[in-house]
């Protein structure tokens, strides 16, 4: 029994520490996830090509390329936010965002902003679907009744955006992300 209690405490501790991270605000007071990355080993053209490929290939189901130049990529996207009960959960909504990528020789930056939340509701078939098509800006100040739930949404959104950012940086550094298949090692049993 003590191991179960220990397990529950660990989960709550992890959850609490996750909630401490939050978005920054830009000059206009909008929430923003902003990253500047040094990348001396990869050329500007390659970085730009990989950024485009990330949007139109890896994330093609949830992102749409809006425009691109020889030093920037503009895209729109959505990401699903999960509600967690212990270690299982279900989607609680989606966040739409604008994605901007700019590159110079030796470094690049990207940011996600204009984030809008659309809550999900379970439909008659047990699937979680958007309740509306009009999103609520993540910057809004919720009323007292919804403050707790909104805090969870912000925390969950940040975690998802941070994960997205990590995958993007990894892809631009190596042209691959963690979930790509590893080559299976071949073992010969003929000689030993």
């Amino acid at each position, binding site marked *: 029994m003590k191991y179960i209690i220990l397990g529950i405490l660990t989960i709550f501790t992890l959850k609490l520490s996750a909630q401490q991270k939050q978005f920054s605000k830009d000059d206009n007071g909008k929430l923003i996830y902003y990253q500047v990355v040094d990348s001396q080993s990869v050329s500007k053209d390659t970085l730009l090509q990989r950024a485009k490929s990330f949007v139109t290939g890896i994330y093609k189901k949830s992102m749409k390329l809006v425009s691109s130049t020889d030093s920037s990529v503009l895209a729109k996207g959505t990401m699903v936010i999960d509600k967690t009960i212990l270690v*299982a959960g279900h989607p609680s909504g989606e966040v739409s965002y604008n994605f901007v990528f700019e590159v110079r020789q030796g470094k690049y930056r990207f940011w996600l902003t204009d984030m809008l939340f659309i809550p999900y509701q379970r439909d008659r078939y*047990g699937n979680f679907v958007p309740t509306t098509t009009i999103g609520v800006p993540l910057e809004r100040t919720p009323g007292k009744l919804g403050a*707790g739930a909104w805090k969870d949404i912000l925390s969950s959104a940040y975690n998802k955006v941070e994960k997205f950012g990590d995958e993007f940086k990894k892809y631009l550094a190596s042209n691959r992300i963690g979930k790509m298949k590893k080559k299976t090692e071949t073992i010969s049993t003929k000689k030993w």
Partner: protein
Amino acid sequence: MKKFLTAIFAMASTTCVLAQETESSPLEISGSVDTYFKYDFAKNPLNAKTSFVTDHNSVSLGMIDIALKKKTGKASFVGELSFGPRGQSQSIPDAAAGGSSFNIQNLYVNYDFTDEFSMTAGYMGTFIGYEVISPVGNFNYSTSYLFTNGPFQNAGIKATYKFSDKVSLMAGVFNDWNVYSATRGVSAVGGQLMVAPVEGWTAYINALSGAGFGGYGTIVDLTTAYQITEKFKLALNAANYDIKDSAVPGSYAGAALYPQYAVSDAVALGLRGEYFKFKAAGAVPETAFTAVTLTANIKSGGLTFIPEVRLDHNKDKPFFNKSGAAAPNGGQFSLAAVYAF
């Protein structure tokens, strides 16, 4: 308790392990719990002519509803069970268990052959109508005459093709209404055309013909909702049901309009105005109901309080007044608490 927690951890861990090996979504667990107090203005519980919210001057139970969903690759399943009056004796033809068993709300498997084409087989919430059994899926806590008299669930197999985000078509074959296994064979065909002409506006044109309530019949249904502004939403449900044997009572027609306005992030007000008539059948004359329901939704996290006032009218006096005499009007106040997780 220990075994229960261990089982949950084991199930979740298995899910995590599987997720690392295949394209697999985590196991989704969701559900709801609801309870209510209702006061009938004539102090007569028989004045409730639609589903659920039947008790008078009582803090009563709705149901606990638990749903599981899992997707692995292109295959997925949904299993949803409910326990409590709303999901059991008041909800289904649960005669075999005397209304004391659980109710399966959804139990089906789905396979996405492509991003556009999928097939589903099993027992599913009906595709007919605007309102549903789960209180989480409705704005009003009490239900409409259209909901009460239409199908709740359909067992069958259906194919859905999504032409675009704005148009999709479903067609399928089904058992008779609300049964886990067919009593008259797989004897109904149904279809649904979904169109979304502009952003925020979705319309479903539904038809189901075959074995149903009162024998064989055909129901045609329009369900549409339009989020006109951030705060204002308007929905409409209209349906016509004709039983093949015109001497059998049960054919109906009706329409319900649902304007809803969000006063704030946490508070929304909604009205349901409904006209509904049972058609004449043999010696049974036509009779018509009108009903107006004013509802508020007050949300705090997963909890929603739903105070509601409902007034019903029928000139044929199916209601009762305080002295027990037949009356043309019925009225009730209810306060429900619904928690969704």
